[in-house]
């Protein structure tokens, strides 16, 4: 038997297929694009699995089109994280359009969680827009920001206002790496508060696409004073969790 999990996010779709023993058979990733169902169909086409579970913001669309069971991102990330880090009690997941902090009980159940409710402040989308405003490739954004000697203060967390704040800093001739560093720092300040509210101590496992950004990790560790652990492929954790749960279905 093979089990698949598909995580349909706002920016990317991940598909993970596992065998009975829990080994990863394949792991695919694609941009969500404008038609998530079609993209998902393309991805699962030709991939062998006996059962699939969907998660991510597109899970309900997938459920309707493919008659598959679904699970929320929150539980999927919790499950996926515990597969790699059996003792993890705190998960931070930052994807394209939302960020969430999940506190787990010792047996791995979701105890409490918090997520941003309406806007894209502090999410992958925010970083993408800011990287573009500063002329960085998103892949290099964090690495470049880490090179800055100091951090410029960015006060606005709203994507729209922050962008105009960045524009005016550029116009004043400020260093763009320092602006970049400041943007990362402003997100981290907000996240630190959210993490402390939900889970006051212990290591934090950082998942989702934004975990690939080295500046986010470094600043988070520094600000939080706690160890931040990043899985090998942080973007695939949701899909992996869904695949594991597909395997556990009766």
């Amino acid at each position, binding site marked *: 038997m093979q089990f698949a999990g598909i995580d349909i996010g706002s920016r990317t779709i991940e598909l993970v297929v596992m065998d009975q023993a829990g080994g990863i058979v394949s792991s695919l990733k694609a941009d969500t694009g404008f038609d998530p169902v079609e993209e998902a169909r393309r991805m699962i086409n030709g991939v062998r699995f006996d059962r699939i579970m969907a998660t991510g913001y597109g899970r309900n669309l997938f459920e309707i089109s493919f008659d598959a069971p679904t699970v929320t991102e929150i*539980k999927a990330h919790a499950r996926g994280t515990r597969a790699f880090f059996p003792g993890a009690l705190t998960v931070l997941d930052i994807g394209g359009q939302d960020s969430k902090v999940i506190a787990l009980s010792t047996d791995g159940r979701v105890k409490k*969680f918090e997520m941003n409710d*309406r806007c894209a402040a502090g999410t992958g989308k925010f970083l993408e827009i800011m990287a573009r405003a500063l002329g960085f490739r998103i892949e290099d954004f964090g690495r470049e920001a880490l090179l800055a000697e100091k951090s410029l203060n960015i006060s606005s967390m709203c994507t729209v206002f922050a962008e105009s704040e960045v524009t005016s800093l550029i116009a004043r001739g400020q260093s763009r790496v320092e602006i970049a560093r400041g943007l990362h720092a402003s997100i981290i300040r907000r996240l630190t508060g959210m993490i402390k509210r939900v889970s006051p101590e212990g290591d934090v496992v950082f998942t989702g696409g934004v975990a690939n950004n080295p500046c986010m990790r470094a600043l988070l560790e520094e600000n939080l004073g706690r160890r931040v652990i990043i899985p090998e492929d942080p973007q695939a954790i949701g899909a992996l969790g869904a695949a594991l749960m597909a395997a556990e279905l009766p």
Partner: protein
Amino acid sequence: MGEDYRRMWTDLGLDLGAHDALVGALGKAYQDIYLAQKDRPLGMGYFDFVMSEVHGLRIRELLDEKKAGRRIIGSYCVFVPEEIVLAANATLVGLCSGADFAMEEVERYLPRNTCALIKSSFGFKLGKVCPYFESADMIVVENTCDGKKKAYETLNDLVSNLYVMDLPQVKSENGRELLKTEYNRFRKAVEELTGVAVTAESLKQAIRTVNAKRAAIHRLSSLRKADPAPISGLDALLANQVFFYDNPARFTVSVEKICDELEGRIKEEKGAFLAGTPRILVSGCPQAVPNWKLPFIVETSGAVIVGEESCVGERGTRNLTDESGETVEQMMDAIIDRYFQVDCAIFTPNPDRLEHIREMAAEYRADGVIHYGLQFCQPYLMEAIPVEKALEGQDIPCMRVETDYSMEDVGQLKTRIEAFIEQLR
């Protein structure tokens, strides 16, 4: 019939085009949210009918009552004592405040950062789409939260028949004294409006009528303790919403009829949801018609709502008025005692509310509590934090939701609510 209503609405001064749009949207929402539910009790047919005629037949009835010499009083709050209204030969109706309407117009009068409920009450007036408001001979508003208090100052410039009731904010002797003064002043105002004096006999009868209506709701609530839940939270909420509009005696009979049916269902272990479905208690701000957003999301995400700790729910209907008084004064005292127990978040401190949430969670066997707060509603949003802490201290999962009447956060809300429900399984 349809033409008749149109003439009636025109005579009331409604904006027919806007009203058509509202009624159309309401009908569609009712179809998608209510009629799409499975395994509903047959007795809900009555409420489906009431909703289909909420701006039609019910308004016609109120206008007929007016013709026969009764007066109509509109209100927005459970502190307005229906007993006094009925005893003086008037009818009390809840006024519309559960949907966004004419928001651009509203924001000329109220700041944008005002709670959805207050804005909505203005929207229905300014958009000329609430036949209840336009039928009312007196609009009773009350000094509860700051938002309402100040908004009513503005509303007073828009209408000629506003009556402002002051309310205490502390449960002290002075507080009770204030409520007493205000209820007596209100009684006089209603008597003046109707020209009918409240007598011991009429007040006793009114207390009985309102108590019967509350007792029917209590019976309905207690049937929701069963697993499987015999009725959906949406349907039970609707009954609690119609409580504010319907003829009291007819409402009582209709709720009792549903209860008989539900008792049969419970015996057969039939439910609106499967046994073992996660059970949610909703606590917080009132949910006025047609604000069905939260229960709709909850009940299409795999859980059932088993109680509402809310003004449109148990906070509003808890406790009967003592019927044993013989004089008007004794009965007025009983009425004051009854209403003074309402644990609205405008009171400080307000420990009874937390106690009631705990009690309800235990009684209705809720697996978790969703605290429903309207954005910018300071009293409830402020209480939400200590409520959540206290519940979690007792291992009752709690999630705070802060939202409004718009649909823009439905996707995010659904994810959060689904995850909360997963947490309860």
